């Protein structure tokens, strides 16, 4: 690898020789300044707000409460419900997306005439706005006129109309199904890229040795795509944990608190009750809980970059 900077610095003498050293910082300045203002400043604001009792329509009643909001959090049953829902939400959605994505990628990696068409069409769920996805699935799940119930009754899978989003025991799983549908193309595309990086010669050698296709999958395919699975999986855990737009539009967190996840709870607290102090405290807590996944992902990616 050639490093240009030092030679450049040496080539340009005179009182402004330092300039060459500063060039990268000047180039970075706009991006750093803008992100500082729109990301780090609000984040600092969030941490400060979480120590206050701040109801937005009563700004004068705002007062410092220290860790008050956080202490309140631990005795709030809704917080624990939302935390548990978040665990189910991530624990089911990410593996389902990955499983379906893996099957799709393996199929798309085979030779067949309409392969590029199939690859483009499968991506559609990824491209759609989440608000469209949410409304679309609300229409499909509709208990009276929704097509899912019509279909299931026609196939005699269920006896009567199922209120998918109105039943507190079903709603979370119905939304998870929607998010699985939305997210599997991402995995399919990432895994497909990983599959195409595995040399064909490895499979040829293995089949000469008489390895069955299952053993080939286990000993060549799986190790070959492991790095992609890990990166995409981590990225998706973070993304799925954060995403609340689909739930917000589909159920608004209801019925009751049955589809509240932590970020959604924070958002609803602030949006509907204008309780920004408490809402922000939930958001900060959630961010800290998510932090371990983020740390693992950052460490992995930075190692890749250094290679």
């Amino acid at each position, binding site marked *: 690898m050639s490093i240009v900077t030092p030679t450049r610095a040496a080539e340009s003498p005179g009182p402004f020789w330092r300039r060459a050293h500063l060039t990268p910082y000047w180039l970075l300045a706009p991006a750093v300044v803008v992100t500082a203002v729109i990301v780090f400043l609000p984040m600092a604001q969030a941490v400060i707000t979480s120590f206050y009792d701040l109801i937005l329509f009563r700004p004068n009643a705002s007062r410092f409460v220290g860790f008050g909001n956080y202490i309140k959090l631990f005795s709030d049953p809704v917080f624990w419900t939302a935390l548990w829902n978040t665990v189910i939400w991530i624990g089911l959605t990410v593996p389902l997306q990955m499983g379906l994505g893996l099957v799709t990628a393996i199929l798309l990696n085979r030779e067949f005439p309409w392969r590029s068409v199939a690859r483009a069409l499968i991506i559609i769920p990824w491209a759609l706005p989440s*608000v469209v996805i949410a409304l679309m699935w609300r229409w499909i799940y509709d208990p009276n006129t929704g097509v899912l119930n019509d279909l299931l009754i026609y196939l005699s899978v269920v006896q009567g109309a199922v209120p998918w989003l109105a039943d507190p025991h079903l709603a979370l799983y119905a939304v998870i199904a929607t998010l699985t*549908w939305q997210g599997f193309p991402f995995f399919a*595309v990432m895994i497909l*890229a990983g599959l195409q990086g595995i040399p064909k010669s490895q499979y040829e050698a293995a089949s000469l040795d008489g390895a069955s296709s299952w053993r080939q999958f286990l000993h060549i395919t799986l190790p070959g795509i492991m790095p992609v699975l890990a990166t995409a999986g981590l*990225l998706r855990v973070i993304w799925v944990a954060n995403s609340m737009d689909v739930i917000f539009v589909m159920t608004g967190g209801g019925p009751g608190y049955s589809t509240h996840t932590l970020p959604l709870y924070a958002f609803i607290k602030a949006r509907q009750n204008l309780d920004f102090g408490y809402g922000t405290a939930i958001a900060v807590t959630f961010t800290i809980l998510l932090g371990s996944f983020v740390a693992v992902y950052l460490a992995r990616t*930075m190692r890749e970059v250094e290679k």
Partner: protein
Amino acid sequence: MNKPSTLRRILTTDLPVALIVLFAMAPFAWMILTSLTPSAQIVSSGVSLSPAGWSLDNYWRLLGQTSFLTNMLHSLIIATGTMVLGLVVAVAAAYAFSRFRFPGRRLLMLQFLLINMFPVVLLILPLFVLMRRFGLLDTHFALILANSTVAIPFAVWMLTSYVGAIPKSLDEAAMTDGCSRLTTLRRIVLPLMVPGIISTGIYIFITAWNEYLYALTLGGRNVRPVTVAIQTLIGEYQIEWGLLAAGAVVGALPATLLFLFVQRHLIGGMTQGAVKG
């Protein structure tokens, strides 16, 4: 030998792929069918599966009786603004990251990766408070800034990997010929980055166009992008699925077409960098 192997291929590959494609497309296809069925008919006899029952009635109402075109314009302004701001700051940053080795480089790169992981909910509440204080709520500028929280780190990472793929020997040759750093960036590197800039820009555009929560929270009566407008089509007394579906189809179309257009170019950069969505 050829016949049975083709049959085998159809059973083990074409058929399962067809099922997955059907699964991926069916919901949106259903939305399109719904949008083509007049609202009154949806209530009385359900969505029409045969072309005989189709009409553009919902689309005419969408364009004639609602402000949907204005909402599209707002989305266009916001998405374009985000794209321009994101690309301008990211091109320079990407060049610095890939061509210089300087103290703090790792830390700054890490910073951009970290930003991409921040929960929306952590930023959306303080951004609302701050923008309210500065009187920015309900402006295009507010939404451009909010969308940039995602767009800038994404663009920095994508473009860094693109610039990294351009041989450094080209820069060195230009500088040996007496070009300055910035001239080299402008004359040599930038033209080679164009494909990367286009696909990154389009992806930012799509993400900003599809964004919903910031639009809902920081927008308002004056600035209402399509994603928020679609939801207002829902109707006051009963849900107007036909009109809503027409809005969803029209609102989703620009981003979907662009996505199909750039998907192949995006994969390479994505497997390396951080991507949301």
